[in-house]
């Protein structure tokens, strides 16, 4: 058994510290853990990701596609970019505040993040959308999002660690003068995560569903058959 967490965002958002804390918490739990980071060119405003793999049966440092149990996205478009890694039924936590590409002022892409969030809401059942600015407002800086989001994950029960375990690793990992504020960030995140839990059940109802009528179903079957025949014919001509 293994539990795979993919953290993604844009260089400078602090994904590395978050992945370090996850790995350290797993170590504290006496679990086997592996991880991998993107380092180099990509750090200068490029997309970054950290793969954290907890468990015995893990051999490669990278999470294979369709295998992540949890995707923690620091940015909406980065969530979509990395969605391939999520396994069926996996959970996503995403910050809804977009980071514009650094080249946006030169080549406007019209990107605003809202479309990404709308897509995620439709596609992902276990989705927690958080607003990093609102979440971190009591802390005075959105830079604490990397630790706060771990609180969200724990509160929403996407992480199996004890609260104390994570707090201990924060105390051991970050610089002494930042321990207190980071622990506070974690606690604020946890409260938000806890409050979100009921929403997941509600999410099931977001997608309007109704049974197809008999007529509609027959239409589809007919259509499918038509397409299939057309495809086979094309295949035969090719041969």
């Amino acid at each position, binding site marked *: 058994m293994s539990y795979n967490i993919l953290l993604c965002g844009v260089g400078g958002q602090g994904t590395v510290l978050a992945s370090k804390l996850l790995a350290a918490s797993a170590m504290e739990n006496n679990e086997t853990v592996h991880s991998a980071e993107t380092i*180099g*060119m990509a750090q200068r405003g*490029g997309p970054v990701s950290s793969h954290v793999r907890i468990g015995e049966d893990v051999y*490669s440092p990278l999470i294979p596609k369709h295998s992540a149990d949890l995707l923690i996205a620091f940015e909406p478009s980065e969530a979509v970019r990395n969605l391939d890694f999520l396994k069926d039924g996996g959970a996503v936590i995403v910050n809804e505040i977009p980071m514009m590409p650094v080249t946006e002022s*030169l080549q406007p892409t019209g990107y605003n993040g809202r479309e990404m969030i709308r897509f995620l809401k439709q596609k992902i059942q276990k989705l927690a959308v958080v607003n990093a600015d609102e979440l971190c407002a009591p802390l005075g800086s959105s830079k604490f999002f990397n630790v706060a989001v771990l609180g969200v994950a724990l509160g929403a029960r996407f992480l199996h660690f004890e609260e104390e375990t994570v707090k201990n690793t924060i105390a051991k990992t970050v610089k002494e003068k930042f321990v207190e504020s980071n622990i506070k960030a974690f606690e604020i995140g946890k409260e938000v995560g806890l409050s979100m839990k009921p929403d997941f059940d509600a999410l099931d109802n977001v997608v309007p569903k109704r049974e197809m009528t008999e007529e509609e179903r027959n239409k589809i079957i007919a259509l499918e058959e038509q397409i299939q025949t057309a495809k086979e014919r094309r295949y035969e001509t090719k041969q």
Partner: protein
Amino acid sequence: MKTEYMMGNSAIALGAIAAGVNVACGYPGTPSSEIIDTIAKHNTNKAIHVEWSVNEKSAMEVVAGASYAGARCLVTMKMMGLNVASDALMSLAYVGVEGGVVIVSADDPGPISSQTEQDTRLFAKYCRIPVFDPSSVEEAYKMIQDAFDYSEKYKTPVLFRPTTRIDHAYAAVTYDETATPKEIPGFVKNSKRFVIFPRLSRMNHEMIEKRNPEIGEDFSSYKCNSFTGKEGNKKAVIAGGVSYAYAKEYLQDRDDVTLIHVATPHPLPETFLLNALKGIEEVLAVEELFPYLEEEVLLLSGKHKLNLSVYGKHTGHMPTAGENTAEGVAEAIGLFLGERKPEDPGKKAFEGVVDKIKDRLSGNEEVMMEEPKAPMRAPVLCAGCPHRASFYAVKSAMKGKKANFSGDIGCYTLGNAMPLDMVDTCLCMGAGITMAQGLHWTDEECVNFAFVGDSTFFASGMTGVANAVYNQADLIVCVLDNSTTAMTGHQPHPGTGITMMGDVANAISIEAVLKALGVKKVLTVNPLDLKAATEAIEECAAESGVKAIIFKSPCIAITKATEKCVISDRCISCKKCIREIGCPAISVVDEKVIIDPNLCTGCGLCTQICPVAAIEKEVR
């Protein structure tokens, strides 16, 4: 013993320390840089000599000398650095070593931050020396210690080649924190051994060719070369490096397929492989970069007349370029074993169409929106980067004139991005200065600029300047001096004077070096002073011969910003600042130009460009 969660490069560094390393030299290069940094960090009693050498060739030669005296030595570099060091290494392979010499040459499949996708395993075969290929962080820690032992046992330098996914992967490693450097026996003069002459080379070549099969035989019982699978298997997967981890990830503990791990690709452990391949009819080689194992198995199969079909890159079963992924390897092995069917590209499109029709009929059309495309995020020079100002000054000064801009390796390669568009060529370390000369000899009317970073200047720029002065070329050397090796993580270099032993040595003045090399005009300017910088460039462009401008301003990552730029309401939204310099801190929100105070370092370049003086500096 102590257990810590660490990066692969730290595991390699601590493994070398556990092996009693005496001398560690290297030149920064992604993904290898953290090895020397880690050794320096753990060298609190200064018992190990650690240095950033000026380039890889220097590092290799320092180590050759220390090894002759019996010291255990580590050299680190990225694989392209091995090209630079190869002159020394090739000869050292013939002469041999006294103290163990392990050369870490980190390969970068992808490539993720490199110019080439070369394969160090092939280099080992070319040099006729052993190579170790770790498949995990944990293995790297142990294997580098074995590498030292084999090096001393056979008196040969050995290569050790991790790849990015080993260097920058993390795992818990238990290491010996009490290890101390080994006793150095001292240099015993022996010119018959240490002075390379054709006669010695001929003799040693024979010895090496006789010895290598013996090492191969020795490697056949090396514990890291291993295979799993039951007798009677017909299919096998042979893998090395991180690709072995990907293969293992897919096969887990299955015994119906033989999985062969080759940890020492050269000299090939033949006996081990013949044993592993017993009864096997088909084998798939899973590896990155060169089809090394694939070709070796083909060779082995021919030599021993095995009834074996070998699949891999040559047969189209594995991709020929780029890095492997866990799912890519799973797919390839799945196909090889007949457990997966090749993906039908038409099928997915077809299913998509059917899904859409279904949604339309069921009234869910609105719901199933198509996946929006994530925006491109190209890397650019940081906000406040002094290189932007240097490039912009040259661009402004040369407006309307015929000029070529030869670039080099470092952060400043990013000067090629729009709107600066100031890098016309980039080849390899130090090539900008020499290539500008070549361009000059083809068109003497054109003004030629060569941009080189401070670290690159010391690594391989100086000889190019000497070449230009000696051969009377006409060019302007622009040294972009940001007082650090920025791209690889801010390592010191001769120009900074800070050494890895924690001393502050005599910093070498780039200006003095250029003058001593005979450059007739050497100007030093602060690139953030646009007027002064432009004037210096114009002054140099007006003269013939070799001129140099040192654009001196520190990297923003090693200084703390004290100011920031703000836009007043005088702004007429002409967006000249955006069009001209492309600073990531400046953007347009609701038709208004704004400066992100978190990104802005107050470099002030934009304040000098604004036509209505609407941007001002402010104290943070």
